[in-house]
């Protein structure tokens, strides 16, 4: 069963999943609680623009330009959202469509968008050692951020004025959290793809939320579902030659429906 490990690209892919799935699982719990699914989806779509900007301005490291763009985009989006009376969904939609279209236009400038089409569905088997290291750094940062900021994020989400009366600067946490999501998405987009990235953030947490009763089991469930489905999806895709990203998402989707049914039949 483990003969797939004899290939370096499979070992890399497995490592990438082991490192990145806890990141998605952790961030996802708060994305779901804060009803930000649309936001993270929009960030994923705008990643295309981040890539394009990096290429146009000829940054030596594409990652640096993507991170800069991600942070800038999320902060700007939050600023506009906080200062208008439009619903957040409208603002997010406007930002995402503009960013994605700009990305598409810039990337097809020389008539060869095909070169970048892998960003749409991603290719986990192409991940390199360097990228795994950046994902590992992401994981460490996200855990550190989670330890410092989770209480603040959660209480701010429950009631901002109440959080403020306790000296919790909810808005600051909120901005940093959005920026974190944006950065993590940018790092993962090349091997997961714009079309699937949001599923990896939303589905584990949503599945866990179906059956969890407190914050600890919510997190634990989310991480377990994320890692298990990630690893299983990769192995299944190796033996069936199905694309791994969609396979992982299918497993996560199945998990969601199973937990949903468990929840429906649970009495209390």
């Amino acid at each position: 069963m483990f003969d797939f490990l004899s290939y370096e690209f499979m070992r890399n892919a497995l490592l990438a999943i082991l490192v990145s799935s806890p990141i998605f699982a952790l961030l996802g719990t708060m994305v779901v609680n804060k009803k930000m699914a649309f936001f993270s989806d929009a960030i994923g779509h705008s990643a295309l623009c981040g890539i394009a900007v990096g290429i146009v301005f000829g940054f030596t490291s594409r990652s640096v330009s993507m991170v800069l763009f991600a942070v800038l985009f999320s902060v700007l989006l939050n600023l506009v959202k906080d200062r208008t009376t439009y619903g957040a969904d409208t603002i997010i939609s406007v930002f995402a469509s503009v960013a994605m279209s700009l990305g598409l236009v810039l990337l097809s400038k020389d008539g060869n968008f095909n070169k970048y089409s892998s960003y749409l569905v991603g290719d986990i088997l192409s991940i390199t050692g360097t990228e795994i290291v950046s994902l590992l750094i992401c994981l460490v940062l996200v855990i550190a951020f989670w330890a410092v900021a989770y209480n603040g994020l959660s209480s701010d989400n429950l009631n901002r004025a109440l959080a403020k009366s306790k000296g919790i600067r909810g808005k600051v946490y909120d901005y940093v959290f959005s920026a974190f999501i944006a950065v993590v998405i940018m790092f993962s987009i090349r091997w997961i793809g714009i079309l699937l990235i949001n599923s990896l953030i939303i589905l584990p947490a949503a599945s866990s939320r179906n059956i969890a009763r407190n914050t600890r089991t919510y997190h634990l469930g989310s991480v377990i579902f994320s890692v298990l489905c990630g690893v299983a999806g990769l192995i299944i895709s190796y033996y069936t030659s199905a694309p791994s990203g969609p396979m992982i998402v299918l497993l996560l989707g199945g998990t969601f429906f199973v937990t949903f049914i468990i929840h429906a039949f649970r009495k209390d």
Partner: protein
Amino acid sequence: MTEHAHKLKDSCNVHCHCIKINGLNVSFGDEKILDDVNLHMHCGELTVLIGPNGAGKSTLLRALLDEVPHEGTIEFKETKTGNISNMMKIGYVPQSLNIEREIPMTVYDLFASFISRYPVWLFKNRKLYDKIREQLRLFSVEDCIDKQVGKLSGGQLQRVMLSIAITPMPNLLILDEPVSGIDENGVRDFYRLVNEMKSRNDLAILLVSHDLELVRKYADKVVLLDRKILCKGTPDEVYADPDFKRIFGGGEV
């Protein structure tokens, strides 16, 4: 001030203080929401804010919480020493929390996220758990500590929120129409709790309310607000005021 409040004031010890709001103004664009509000609150006193819809009651609370930009000063003075300090602690009970029935969050999680930096997604912190249980006991809801917040009754959630608001004990407790969403018994219960809390602790309480009957029974001071303060005084004084009769239709209380 009622006789009751006088008695409380005398029994008040070193922590006795008063809170002075001077010339508070709030405007959104050209529109003046609050015009020159002056208010004096003492510890051991329940001040109730009443007024028609859109009078700016919630805005006043939000200005005190520093949630909306405002002009004017809020002074906090120890009556014994006469020291003016900026270190006023405010406790707040909001109208509602952003929770759904199924949210995976227990009362412990909710409470801890507001009063502690220990991450609630890690293992339960025993010391914190015991402290929260102690605080919940003050309102007889210690048995709810492991319940999911979305599954509490309105009255239980109200008690949990009161308990959060007084951890740590504030100098001023602000209650924003907290009675909405609970039945009539729950409302009476709530006023009883607030009254108890007032006599047990050294704090001033500011409450926004619609229940004029219970206000008459429990308030030490009533403030009638409609963009500016129309009148203030004991419930009897305010209820006899022509402005009060104009706004609330007189007689019916």
